[in-house]
């Protein structure tokens, strides 16, 4: 417990521990962008409704705009900058290029992180709201992709390419 309104926070981002001095009010999103200069993660609505700020926290999807940075201490954060293996793009990044899964690109980092978290859920056998059988192995058809990705908006309307890109990676 501290009487301080700010303090040093150790954030583990893309496999590296980074110490930042933050106001307790800082969201993880603002800490990433303004303090760590990881500007790949985007601020859209700032209220958890658009998904542009999606990152992975301990491997699961999260709106970084709704997480206090200080509360993310000790958790493993992965941003879009951490998806590629040095110069080798993540397969999903390549698929977004191949299927033209964007126009302006602002929602893309959130789409990528969200889709990677979503595909991990599917691989783990997680059903969705529209799955007819809650206990069957998920069958990731296009409607399932749309339902599971409903937390990511694309105002350019590039959904057709986004779904195709995710489909390609899901089908291996």
């Amino acid at each position, binding site marked *: *417990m*501290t*009487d*301080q*309104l700010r303090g040093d926070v150790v954030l583990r981002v893309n496999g590296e521990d980074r110490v930042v001095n933050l*106001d*307790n*009010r800082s*969201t993880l999103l603002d800490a990433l962008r303004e303090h760590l200069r990881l500007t790949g993660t985007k601020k859209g609505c*700032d*209220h*958890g409704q658009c*998904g542009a700020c*999606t990152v992975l*926290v301990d491997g*699961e*999807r*999260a*709106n970084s705009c*709704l*997480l*206090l940075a*200080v*509360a993310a*201490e000790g958790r493993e954060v992965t941003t879009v900058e951490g998806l590629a293996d040095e110069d080798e793009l993540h397969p999903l990044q390549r698929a977004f290029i191949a299927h033209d899964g964007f126009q302006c690109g602002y929602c893309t980092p959130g789409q990528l992180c*969200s889709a990677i*978290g*979503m595909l991990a*859920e599917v691989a*783990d*056998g*997680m*059903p*969705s*709201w*529209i799955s*007819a059988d*809650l*206990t069957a192995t998920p069958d990731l058809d296009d409607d399932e992709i*749309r*339902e*599971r*990705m*409903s*937390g*990511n908006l694309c105002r350019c309307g590039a959904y057709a390419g986004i779904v195709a890109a995710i489909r390609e990676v899901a089908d291996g």
Partner: protein
Amino acid sequence: MRAFRYARATDPGAAAALVTSQPDAVYLGGGTNLVDLMKLGVLRPGLVVDVSRLPYDRIEHLPDGGVLIGGAARNRRVAHDEGIRRRYPALARALLSGASGQIRSQATVAGNLLQRTRCPYFQNTATPCNKRDPGSGCSAIPGAHRDLGVIGTSEHCVATHPSDLAVALAAYDAVVEVRRPDGAEVLVPIGDLHRLPGDTPWIETVLEPGDLVTGVQLPPPPDGAVATYRKVRDRWSFAFATVSVAAVLSTDQVRLALGGVAPKPWRLTATERMLAGTDPSDDDVRAATRAAFTDARPLPENAFKIELAADLVAAVLRDLRTAGAVR
């Protein structure tokens, strides 16, 4: 946002001591509602006590067929739990219907139960709201109340409780585990957790300062029961319920709870009594559902919810009877 102190609790006693040390202290779970309300200026805590890492994240299936779910368990994990999916499908579906994948991954069970209404006037500090600013008046009654409550409301507040999870818990007769600041454990039936607004809409639950929701207990579902959760909303996904229903059906009983219509999950006990052990037609079910709204206070823009609820309950019970638990 107002500046605040932050403390990460390492044990529940210390957490309770901190949160009762000043009147403007709050517990933090996943933060998916609290942080948003802090950004909006609706909540202005001076101290945030993070209880998300306390050891209350268990999902424990009991020999008697019941289950204990920790208050700090994340919604995604609860929905994914195989025993929950097999034995409590209405609970899994309710969770899967809520919010987005991102929010489900972070939101906690306790936070879900204690989340605040999405009434647009509650969330807008520029408008009067008796819940946010006692005595200032209700903007929703003469205003945009189409999404708000039709029963259990008062002349001072027509807010709905937005949780899908709570509606399913009501149909499963869940009991909420509460840890008092002195360490005592008390059990609160889910139907008693939330209070109706009456003259004091700012008092939303029976919890006292420092009380911590540590989990929920679900008794075994009725033998041979089928169950589901269905949600009617304005768009296909990532929206709050206009009206939702959790239904648990066995040969000798039916349990029904509605979301989107009231300040708390709304059990249809009168309807249940009328339908138990019968083989009703759709019209019988509609009539029995309407009977549960005898004391309703519908407003011009949301009176349709009663007929929608009647249709929804009829459709869900028909599907449960004919096809087993389906969406």
